[in-house]
């Protein structure tokens, strides 16, 4: 048994305490299992992985269910039963082991299942347990007390990203045993990433298409550099792993091109530092460059991949230019923006030719001096009615077009594109309300393409 623990400790650096705790709970065959264990900690800290490998290593019969998948409790029960009973679904019929609609059915069928297979000392693992809060109210208490309810020696492991206190439910009679998976420290991350060495070596070989040898020290040096940049902004292991892999290719490049030597860590650092900083900005975005024909080319493209990706996603200009809208749709969008960011009482002054004189009052003078946080454009869009949108549309459009169904369709297209959002209820056909979801920079570019001066029609700028 000790060998298993040691093996796990090797595979999961920094998880020694948690592995030992879990082993003490489940590792001893002759002791009864606890009824429920609650494991919590931030994402990608090895919760599911540790539990899974421990249970597999101890050869404990288990059912592992990801609750995201369970849109109804029926799916949850049936997949637990399927796994515990070892039921193979016939893909031509698709019948589960047993049909369960509620907890009672589940417990009944669980007992029935216990007659067929030995369910003693089996474990049910509920991953993403925080989803339980939005499911049937009796699920959490039932699973907490499953041992008691079913009369079987079945224990339940909850894996969650939030603490147990956030599971608000009444009659909290039973508190599970809690194990916390803490965030990895920098050293631990370094050690975990180092485990990828073989994998990365293969990856590098694939990428450079040649016999290109790197040693482990070279890689761990790189990881040190990498973490010095990334550790401050991101602790998510899977993200770090992804980024380190991508950037390692670029790190190796000078060596491959024979510009630097393998040992010249300073030169390599000077080469990689700007690249790492650039890729910080595309963290979590996961955009890989557009597929290319040749490998050789791919390397080149990957070099400025980070930059192009940045262009793709961040510059508003490119977005507005990429987006091709029909002429009237652009005007509709502008009208929507104006309706969202102007108070309705100003409409008359802004859009009518003869709106009469406005007497200056003390209030207006004061209103001039408002701070920028109170500007309409800074406050976020306000909802507006359909009629107002159309009225403004006709006011800003110079030529006369008749109001036809093609225009109406454009409005719903804009909603579909998430440039507008519908505020009112979908079934309320009479008074539809919308909000404009685009930013000022965006609308400025759009209005530039149709030669429309938007600032002239915004209260904030007058």
């Amino acid at each position, binding site marked *: 048994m000790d060998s298993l623990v040691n093996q796990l400790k090797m595979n999961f650096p920094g998880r020694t305490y948690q592995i030992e705790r879990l082993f003490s709970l489940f590792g001893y065959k002759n002791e009864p299992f606890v009824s429920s264990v609650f494991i919590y900690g931030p994402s990608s800290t090895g919760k*599911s*992985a540790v539990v*899974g*490998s421990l249970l*597999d290593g101890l050869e404990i019969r288990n059912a592992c269910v*990801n609750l*995201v*998948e369970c*849109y*109804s409790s029926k799916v949850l029960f049936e*997949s637990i039963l*399927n796994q515990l009973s070892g039921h193979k*679904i016939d*893909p*031509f019929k*698709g*019948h*589960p082991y047993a049909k369960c609609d509620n907890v009672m059915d589940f417990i009944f069928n669980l007992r029935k299942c216990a007659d067929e297979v030995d369910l003693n000392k089996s474990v049910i693992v509920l*991953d*993403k347990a925080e989803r339980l809060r939005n499911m049937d109210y009796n699920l959490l208490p039932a699973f907490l007390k499953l041992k008691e309810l079913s009369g079987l020696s079945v224990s339940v492991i909850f894996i969650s990203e939030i603490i147990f206190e956030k599971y608000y439910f009444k009659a909290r009679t039973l508190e599970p045993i809690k194990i916390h998976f803490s965030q990895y420290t920098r050293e631990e991350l370094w050690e975990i990433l180092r485990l*990828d060495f073989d*994998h990365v070596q293969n990856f590098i070989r*694939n990428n450079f298409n040649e016999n290109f040898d790197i040693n482990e020290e070279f890689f761990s040096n790189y990881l040190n550099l990498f973490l010095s940049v990334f550790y401050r902004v991101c602790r*998510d292991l*899977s*993200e770090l*792993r*992804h980024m380190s892999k991508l950037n390692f290719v670029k790190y190796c490049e000078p060596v491959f091109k024979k510009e630097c030597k393998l040992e010249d860590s300073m030169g390599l650092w000077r080469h990689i530092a700007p690249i790492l900083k650039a890729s910080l900005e595309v963290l*979590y*975005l*996961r*955009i*890989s*460059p*557009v*597929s290319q024909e040749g490998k050789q080319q791919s390397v080149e493209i990957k070099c400025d991949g980070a930059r192009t990706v940045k262009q*793709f*996603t961040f510059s508003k200009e490119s*977005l507005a230019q*990429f*987006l*091709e*809208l*029909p*002429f*009237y*749709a652009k005007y509709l969008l502008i009208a929507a923006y104006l309706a969202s960011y102007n108070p309705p009482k100003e409409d008359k002054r802004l859009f009518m030719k003869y709106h009469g004189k406005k007497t200056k009052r003390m209030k207006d003078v004061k209103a001039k001096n408002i701070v920028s946080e109170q500007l309409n454009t800074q406050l976020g869009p306000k909802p507006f009615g359909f009629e107002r949108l159309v009225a403004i549309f006709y006011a800003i459009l110079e030529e006369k*077009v*008749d*109001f*036809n*169904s*093609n*225009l109406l*369709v*454009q409005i719903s*297209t804009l909603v*579909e*594109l*998430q440039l507008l959002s519908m505020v009112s209820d979908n079934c309320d056909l009479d008074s539809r309300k919308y909000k404009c979801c685009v930013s000022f920079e965006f609308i400025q570019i759009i209005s530039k393409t149709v030669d429309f001066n938007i600032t002239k029609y915004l209260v904030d700028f007058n």
Partner: protein
Amino acid sequence: MSDTTVSVSKGVFVFKNGGTSQHKRVRKPQPDGEDSCNIFSNKLWYQSYNRNWKILEKKLKTLNSNMFSSILSSLVESIKHSHNTPVTEIPTATLLTGINMPDHSALFSTLSREIRKNVTPHVATLHAEDSQNLKYVIESTVNQFVNQTLEDDSDMEDCENEDNKKSKVRKSSCTFSLLQAWYEKLYGPPGLRIFFPVKRKMRDGHKLLVVIFPDFESFNDKIIQDFILIVSSYLNKLPFVLVFGVATSVSAVHKSLPYHVSSKISVQIFNSQPSTTYLNNVIENIFFTDDCPFHLGGKVFNLFTDIFLFYDLSVKGFIKNFKFAMLEHFSFGNSMALCTNSRNLKKALEQLTHEDLERIQELPSVKKFIINPSPEKKSKFADDDYFKNLMYEKFQEFYAYLNSFHLFLKCLYVLVSDLPKSPLGKQIRELYSTATSKNITKTSEFEECFKLISFQSKDELYEKISKVCKILEKEIENNKMNKNVTEEFSERLINYIERIENATTVISESPLKPQETEENLVIGKMDRRQLKEKLLEMSKKSKLMNEYEKIRLELIEYLKKTFEQYLQEPSSRSFHEIFFFNDMSIKKQIIGSHRAAIHAALNDPQYYLQCNCCKLQNEATILPSMPDVSILYKLHLEYGKLINLYDWLQSFLSIVDPDDNNEEVGKRVVKPELQARFTQAVADLEYLGFIKSSKRKTDFVVRLTWGG
């Protein structure tokens, strides 16, 4: 059936039609498509239309697949290789499609076909409209995977497993565990459960599972997030690939996915062509060719392109409009059957009856043609055979004209498209619409273009002319029509090219020199004012041209003359109505303007009712015979923003029941029947959205519309 639907309340009743299942219905081969069941199928014009449309449709299809092929092939290729290396994230292809939604269906159906053909048989397509919640999404995904292959199996194995065929997996039992079981049955079980990062390489033979989301933006964020999380948890057992169709930009993906989800996918971006390029392609390669005898006139063509550019950017819509115009054109009568290729012309002519010929003679351009040359010979036209022969000749001329029209338009396009400010437009479609509506060579833009060309440098001009030559060469190779014209033109141009190439840009100064020195001497003696005058004079004097400039001038003159000859507008030709459709009355059918339609219906009910009693002498008159709603509507047009109900009722009564008028207005007793009619009509108007009850004043309603 009427018995069963009697109910106290309103309701919707479902009757199961005892029809065959959808499955069977699809398989039933339809004999000869729509031809057999169409009432027009034996009409001459319809046959002609059908033939032409079939040709167009076929060309469209090939064009579509060619157009999509470049982007699709790279997409399919990347999908193919996505699982070659071990993955930790779901490989995701994001296809930026542009906003013209209706066109996407073609793209995505081609995509899924391509994937099926080249990569994997397992493709599921999820549409936003039937993905209300996660349950539906999962069920429909799994259902598409599992049941679709079952069908294929049963196709192959035929009757072997009869019962399998029948027992499709029920939708409610479609879960991911089922999918896993199904996949393992197909390809064998995966390795042991590996919790450490998935480093398993996909084994050969394991086919990918591709899920396509054609309209990513319209999906609920939550659903997509959950779906991605689930898929990523199964990624080590099932090789999933996602394809997102994004209409706006990549940021839409990141907007709807939080970090913990977006880190589960690895996105590759593919850009598709903008829809304007698509349209230009379609127009140039399909509608602007000689194979399509049917042409849009300038006005209608403008209308269609305007709809495209201003309203929807939908190529599919454009093609639909084109088809509609074509139907409208052909349904004019059998005489339109002549709008066909030169090969079929003779046959079509033979089939025409005397009446058809008479109708042709009625066409304005033909009428002019008949009267113009020889009014005394008019009787000759009554002779069918004579007229047919004449038409045959004339049509041959017309074909030649059409051919040269397109050809020279293309040449002109090459010359003028990249001029500064492009006076004639940047697209060939703009040239076409000008050229078909008026004589393009007479326009000021044309003059301006040639002025600009005459400023072009040697290299620029050389390049352009050689491009034109290439077009001509291609034309000479492919087409037999107008061969001598094209050949001559091309020869002349080649000649010019050679001359341009050899021409020097240096001014041949030798004859000038003595004069210049002489003038220099004179300058020395002049005072300032004289000098100024002299200089002005000199600048006015035409600058002496070098050799190149001379050739350029000559070339431009030649080009102008040629274009003038061949780019006459079609309406100057007789019989142009047969080939060009320029009837703007179809605008009403193409652009549905509902408000105008409602206004017309209420203002002039006779327009729709076609009754004799409601004929209006002028717009404003109100007749008692009209429907109540329309009387009230016409009355309400006369009011201001607020309408007093009582006044309204009185005016209503004075129209509907004018006999009672002599009584005093105030004391008048309103007949309950009339009041009921009035109330009903008011309610109708409110329902139509013209008025609403006012909260500020009792017994008043507010008008909601303005203008006519």
